[in-house]
């Protein structure tokens, strides 16, 4: 490279003459290429969302470098998503909780005092003991989310509480699990049992894979797209998946069940359903045929706005590819208060197509038969979350957050103490802002364990700062999936600041509460090591490989004509549900039209974006750079009516007069003129999360009207409407 040599000589002169303010002779010491130092790898399980991909934390010369997926892991196939790749941002976030905090009163004002661990744990244990003596241990409610919650549920069970609630239940996927359980006797589960990589036709109803960056879901969906599968997407918004679809059905919001019934009508009346499968495995087909007889595509057109011919054509495409047709069960399904029934319709449609237990439909997952570490039985709690439901929601399998929160205030409150683990209730549970404030005033103890100063910490008496996932051990991951596997999280770093792992915090509280027989170990790795030895592995092996696969015991699909007993009361797929009927509900999914928007209001649709996991990651300094704020998506026609400029700030006001933070307008054709779209998780109001505080608008604040599913308690959140008000801030 002669020319380069020549120019090198002229560098100093040219540079100095032309640009005196710039570098005179280049960078004195060019940085070494990444990875040229001493690189070490530590196995981890990602905690950036609930998907829990296995990976390796890479350090270079002892400094944090990157996190990369474990190629052996079926959750990720070695490729972490945006959030997982940015996982070290959680570790590096300067706004992390750093020390235990105790609420104290100084000069008549309440404030947090930085406490030692002994001080904070003694205080917590003392009050928990007092509350157990005065009100009984069942007066403790546990709100949790995330993988590490297991340590604290264990503590609470040993203490004698039976009240547990997760936003993941009523606010997210529980209606799906109940709907499928009532139909097939089994749930979908996290790591959805969808066999999309082998699907020839995929139907997505309001589920936006793509914006939802659930790793294996995205991988298998895009694999199907690449192989030319027919994608049918039902969504009022032109989602990422819609842009990959052969058919995008821009449905009128709230009318999905009408479409599902019409699809069934076409399959039944045209004889396109899997007759052998239906005869062999299902119960109630005659009732179903009768139920859908009147639900013609012409009827559905008036509800959904989707042309009858499109409904027929898409139903025929589904049937043509069956059983390799998947009508996706979705994930966040708490929409309209009839969610279990709508999901039942999805479940029934899959049964008509014969896709459950079939290649390209829904496979049969397995997990490792992993013994529990031997511990004494928990005390039997006198009351549980079921009592908090007071006879409502007969098919609930866990506590409904809203109910437990609502019973935490007033003199007769069922709950006198809260233990909150990584569940930021004010941002993740809708229509409870006032109840949370009231509960916070009345509770005798509110303990929050978190890594970040989320809004909920502001209501705490004690804040116990946990270290992030790359600084701790946690339980073994043993998710049901295509190939059973165990994954281990190993600390790559010492706990930073004055933080501690969850297992340590739970054990220290346990010892102070006299519950030592449930914590007979000193280090959590003793539990992990014992469990691993039962399945022929060891800590030494797992600390090296991070993930170990095990052979399947049974086939992942039903064999042709296999005699298979479904774990329902009848042993069949229950198209018509006797269980629902006995509890006074419709045995068949029945359609009710949605509420109509008030004049000048637009239906509030919310959802995900791939760079963030709800409100948990918006302050992550790496992910913040990819998506610092949310925007409100507005159709150009609506924007014209309101004279909204792209990028300008507005505020949203809902039907109950609640006004949002200011939020930028994104004028886009990707949303219709009757709705607006907001990404969930923004609009934080917590000054100690400095990047994200006050940035963007919170959908949760605008969701003041919820419709609760009477079958199992899901909080339907899609019946809220907003209009625009000026940004006077």
């Amino acid at each position, binding site marked *: 490279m002669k020319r380069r040599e020549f120019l090198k000589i002229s560098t100093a002169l*040219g540079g100095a003459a032309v*640009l005196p303010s710039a570098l005179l002779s*280049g960078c004195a010491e060019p940085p070494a290429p990444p990875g040229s130092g001493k690189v070490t790898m530590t196995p981890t399980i990602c905690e950036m969302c609930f998907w829990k991909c296995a990976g390796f934390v890479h350090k270079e010369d002892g400094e944090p470098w990157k996190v990369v997926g474990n190629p052996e892991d079926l959750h990720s196939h070695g490729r972490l998503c945006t959030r997982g790749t940015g996982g*070290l941002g959680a570790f590096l976030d300067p706004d992390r909780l750093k020390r235990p905090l105790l609420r104290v009163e100084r000069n008549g004002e309440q404030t947090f005092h930085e406490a030692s661990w002994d001080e904070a744990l003694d205080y917590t244990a003392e009050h928990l003991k007092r509350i157990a003596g005065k009100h009984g241990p069942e007066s403790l409610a546990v709100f949790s989310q995330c993988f590490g919650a297991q340590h604290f549920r264990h503590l609470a069970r040993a203490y004698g509480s039976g009240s547990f609630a997760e936003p993941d239940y009523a606010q997210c996927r529980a209606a799906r699990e109940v709907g499928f359980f009532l139909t097939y006797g089994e749930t979908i589960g996290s790591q959805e049992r969808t066999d999309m990589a082998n699907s020839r036709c995929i139907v997505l109803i309001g589920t936006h894979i793509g914006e939802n960056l659930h790793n294996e879901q995205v991988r298998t969906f895009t694999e199907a797209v*690449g192989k030319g599968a027919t994608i049918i997407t039902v969504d009022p918004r032109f989602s990422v998946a819609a842009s990959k679809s052969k058919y995008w059905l821009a449905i009128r919001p709230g009318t999905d069940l009408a479409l599902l019934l019409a699809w069934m009508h076409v399959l039944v009346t045209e004889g396109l359903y899997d007759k052998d499968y239906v005869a062999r495995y299902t119960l109630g087909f005659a009732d179903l045929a009768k139920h859908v007889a009147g639900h013609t595509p012409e009827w559905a057109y008036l509800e959904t706005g989707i042309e009858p011919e499109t409904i027929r054509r898409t139903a025929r495409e589904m049937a043509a590819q069956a059983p390799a047709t998947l009508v996706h069960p979705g994930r966040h399904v708490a929409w309209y208060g009839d969610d279990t029934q709508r999901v039942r319709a999805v479940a029934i449609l899959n049964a008509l197509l014969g896709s459950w237990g079939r290649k390209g439909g829904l496979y049969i997952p397995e997990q490792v038969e992993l013994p529990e570490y031997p511990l004494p039985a928990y005390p039997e709690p006198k009351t549980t979350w079921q009592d908090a439901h007071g006879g409502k929601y007969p098919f609930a399998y866990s506590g409904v957050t809203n109910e437990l929160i609502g019973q935490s205030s007033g003199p007769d409150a069922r709950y006198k103490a809260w233990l909150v683990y990584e569940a930021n209730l004010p941002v993740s549970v809708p229509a409870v802002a006032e109840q949370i404030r009231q509960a916070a005033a009345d509770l005798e103890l509110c303990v929050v364990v978190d890594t970040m100063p989320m809004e909920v910490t502001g209501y705490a008496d004690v804040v116990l700062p946990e270290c992030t996932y790359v600084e701790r051990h946690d339980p073994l991951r043993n998710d049901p999936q295509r190939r059973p596997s165990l994954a281990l999280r190993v600390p790559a770093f010492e706990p930073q600041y004055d933080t501690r792992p969850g297992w340590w915090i739970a054990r220290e509280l346990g010892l102070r509460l006299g519950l030592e027989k449930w914590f007979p170990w000193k280090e959590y790795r003793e539990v992990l090591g014992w469990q691993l030895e039962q399945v022929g592995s060891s800590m030494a092996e797992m600390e090296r490989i991070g993930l170990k696969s095990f052979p399947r015991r049974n086939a992942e699909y039903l064999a042709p004509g296999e005699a298979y007993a479904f774990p329902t009361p009848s042993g069949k797929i229950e198209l018509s549900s006797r269980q629902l009927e006995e509890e006074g509900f419709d045995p068949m999914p029945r359609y009710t039209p949605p509420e109509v928007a008030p004049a000048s209001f637009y239906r509030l649709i919310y959802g995900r974006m791939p760079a963030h996991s709800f409100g948990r990651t918006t302050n992550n300094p790496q992910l913040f750079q*990819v998506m610092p704020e949310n925007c409100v998506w507005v159709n150009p026609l609506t924007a014209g009516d309101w004279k909204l400029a792209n990028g300008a700030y507005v505020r949203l006001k809902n039907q109950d007069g609640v006004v949002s933070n200011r939020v930028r307008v994104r004028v886009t054709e*990707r949303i219709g003129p009757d709705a607006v779209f907001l990404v969930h998780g923004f609009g934080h109001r917590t000054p100690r999360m400095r990047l994200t505080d006050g940035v963007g608008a919170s959908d949760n604040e605008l969701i003041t009207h919820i419709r609760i599913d009477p079958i199992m308690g899901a909080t339907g959140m899609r019946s809220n409407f907003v209009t625009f008000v000026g940004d006077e801030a």
Partner: protein
Amino acid sequence: MTRYAMVVDTRLCIGCGDCVIACKTENKVPDGLNRDWVMEATHGRYPHLGTEFRSERCNHCAHATCVQSCPTGASHYWGETNIVQVAPELCTGCKACIAACPYNARLIRPEGYIDKCTFCVHRVEQGLEPACVSTCPTRCMHFGVLDDANSEVSRLLASRDSYCLLPETGNEPQVYYLR
């Protein structure tokens, strides 16, 4: 010249930005700067729409105007290839390359020198793919040698309709997008 190329399948790209974070962490790119980015292009009127997502970066042009414009030789080709590199020790931060780049692919480091996508040559040297390619959860990105007719990138370009950005510049960009 051995031509290395990147091929991005826009049918599969979901615009998740994982490539951006993977690049930033792999290459320790300072806060607020990035060497790659994602474009979203929507056309049509509701409800008759198309949206395309594209992961974009330096096009590692075979006729790179940035290399030609650099007065110090800091911007140069890596060996006998089209992979454009910046030698920080030679860069004076004069920004001639920024003016010459049709793709706005260059950035100014806080230290004052110019930075850009390197196609992760430190990984390519080890037989690995660039960090963005190896991380992409949809597998929409591919990397390889275009002069090898059997390489994955050559086979993809031979079998699928593709385009480059701003081919009219004559720069011969080497990042291709499959339609």
